């Protein structure tokens, strides 16, 4: 699974120093749980995103371990403190070894 994976991230453009902002992330991914069967009754092998991390200027905001019970197109919403202007780096790790990332800059108001 590496086709049609598209990360989408929503971060405010500006913040005041020390402000806690809300970040919303979504990545399009089928998240095959390994429980479903195809028409012939064979189990469709598991293929999910197993880890998601968010960093700001190299410092960790959140690190989420994902298991098959997370829905298709995994969505996460969380809060981050912005001490200064900089870049948020979002990384998703696929079962097949692929790594998807996205970066968003934020400026000081």
């Amino acid at each position, binding site marked *: 699974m590496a086709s049609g994976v598209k990360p989408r991230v929503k971060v405010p453009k500006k913040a005041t120093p020390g402000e806690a902002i809300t970040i919303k992330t979504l990545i399009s991914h089928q998240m095959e*749980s390994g429980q479903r069967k195809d028409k012939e009754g064979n189990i469709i092998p598991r293929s999910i995103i197993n880890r998601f991390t968010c960093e700001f200027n190299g410092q960790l905001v*959140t*690190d989420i371990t994902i298991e098959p*019970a*997370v*829905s298709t197109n*995994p969505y996460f919403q*969380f*809060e*981050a403190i912005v001490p200064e202007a900089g870049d948020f780096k979002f990384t998703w790790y696929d079962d097949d070894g692929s790594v998807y990332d996205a970066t968003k800059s934020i400026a000081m108001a």
Partner: protein
Amino acid sequence: MEFSRRETLGLALGAAVMTVLPLRVSASIVDDRIAEFTGGADMADTGIELTAPEIAENGNTVPISVDAPGATAIMVLATGNPTPGVATFNFGPLAGSQSASTRIRLAGTQDVVAIAKLADGSFAKASAAVKVTIGGCGG
């Protein structure tokens, strides 16, 4: 065809075992996962909040959110799923609050459990019962 008293009792016992067995299996996985996360420590009932809908029409996407002020990690388990693990949230130094929302799959009506590891090393647990109309594990 008539059943003797003995046969009737035997059938009833068999049926009871059949219904209890699958639950027991998944319950032990849940207990194992909790023990692995907490190291067998006691869990308080306060300090963590788990928000989940009472009734979910579609088990494929059930919105949940967890909030545990001062937590370093939160583990979410769906006790009635074939694989109970849902996700583990670890919070870094720049986390604005120890809360997160996501969408999960639930195989059927069940309890969702969230356990927070607090900064002082103690643990807190919350659970929510969710009624699921259509299960979300295919099959």
